[in-house]
């Protein structure tokens, strides 16, 4: 499987992370999204007329939506899917349109109404915090249950990268515990802005 990848993209990281957790090898093709705008080049538009990343190519199948890609990667791994995933995959889009947009604005100068983007991001984080707190009352740490699913992988990157867009995660203890649970998963990989757990990897 080939992933057309941009190293700083939260959505591309969803795919890299999911594949790493599954132990599924991916061939990465670096795309110069910034500053090169290579995702809008004729070669890339031929592959994906929408001009977006990520793009996953698996034989004759070409997928360009990160939720579809997560479902595709886990097609033979039912433990990574739940009947509740759909609402969280939609919620992941809200995170991308708010926190994700604020991050692109602050980091690489994307045009955005930054106050509106951050405010929508905070609204989304409050919903996420409320849900994860309810889950903790039930003794559950992940979004849909005791074990992680594609719902968690879809929502994790833009949440964890919120500080890149000027939105603090300090007010959300349940979100921070949930992020720690994801970072503790066997096979977890980092991306710039999301660090690995040094302290747990090497206990004193």
């Amino acid at each position: 499987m080939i992933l057309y990848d941009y190293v700083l993209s939260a959505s591309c990281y969803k795919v890299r992370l999911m594949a790493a957790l599954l132990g599924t090898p991916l061939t990465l093709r670096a795309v110069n999204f910034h500053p090169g705008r290579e995702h809008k080049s004729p070669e890339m538009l031929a592959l994906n007329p929408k001009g977006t990343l990520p793009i996953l190519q698996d034989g004759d199948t070409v997928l360009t939506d990160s939720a579809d890609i997560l479902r595709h990667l886990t097609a033979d791994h039912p433990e990574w899917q739940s009947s509740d995933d759909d609402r969280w995959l939609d919620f992941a889009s809200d995170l991308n349109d708010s926190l994700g947009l604020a991050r692109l604005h602050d980091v690489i100068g994307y045009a955005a109404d930054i106050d509106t983007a951050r405010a929508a991001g905070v609204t989304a984080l409050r919903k996420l915090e409320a849900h994860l707190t309810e889950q903790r009352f039930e003794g559950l740490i992940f979004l849909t249950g005791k074990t992680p699913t594609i719902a968690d992988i879809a929502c994790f990157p833009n949440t964890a990268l919120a500080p890149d867009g000027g939105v603090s995660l300090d007010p959300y203890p349940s979100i921070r515990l949930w992020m720690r649970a994801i970072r503790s998963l066997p096979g977890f990989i980092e991306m710039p802005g999301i660090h690995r757990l040094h302290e747990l990897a090497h206990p004193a």
Partner: protein
Amino acid sequence: MNAAIDNHWYPVAMITGIDAPRETLLLGKKITLGREDGTCWVLDASGAELPTVERFGHLWTSPGQPNRDLFTIPEADNPGRRLVDVGSVKVKCSPLRAVENFLDIAHFPFVHTDILGAEPHTEVDRYDVKIREEVDEVWATKVKFYQPQAAKSAAGGITTEYMYRVPAPTCSVLYKTCPPRPGEWDIITLFVQPLTDEWCEVWPWMALYDDDSTMSEMVSFQQLIFMQDRSILENQIPRKLPLDPGMEVPTQADMTSVAYRRWLKKIGYTYGAQLVAA
């Protein structure tokens, strides 16, 4: 006006990225820049034309009257090098903090884990630092460090040798062992545009020997490294770089940083700096 700050050259754009006139900030003041018939121009807030230099793929300007030409990197002109426009990243930190971080080796195993450093190889051996008075630049030489993946072109771990050069207050040039050509230096620069004293736009640029990687792979590698630094930079306290001792306690590994701060104080470069220990 403060000549010690204004009379320097500052990067304000990647030349190939200028498609329409646009506004940006330099030292807290609005400027406008653009490109017509292949020539770049910059105007200050009053509409007056500012001096320009086009070099290293970037547009440089100055709000003052620079008393010398923008520095050069003669080695970058060697045939066979690939010149890499990395693009820019904005960071909410003092421009001097961004440069200082670039000069630091000790954070590699912790921030750039398994790439530019790895535990347990955390010790920074003694190296040489001096302010070269004749050119008015800070230089650190004979810096050696074990790196699991020193560059996109590296096939495995190597002990990399570094030379650091600070030719201008908000710029640094790094010469490091080139993995495919151990007798040559790769050149990696950090050009910092001070938007304000606590906000900057960072323009990395590279001149590498690498015949295998795609341009996109080389850009990705450097963006990955710099974005690993960004979240650290945005959380450094105090926000401004202290130039007087007392606030932060340096160790032997920080000799370059000590020389950089001493040099900034000597030349009176105080933008983004904190002068009295709090």
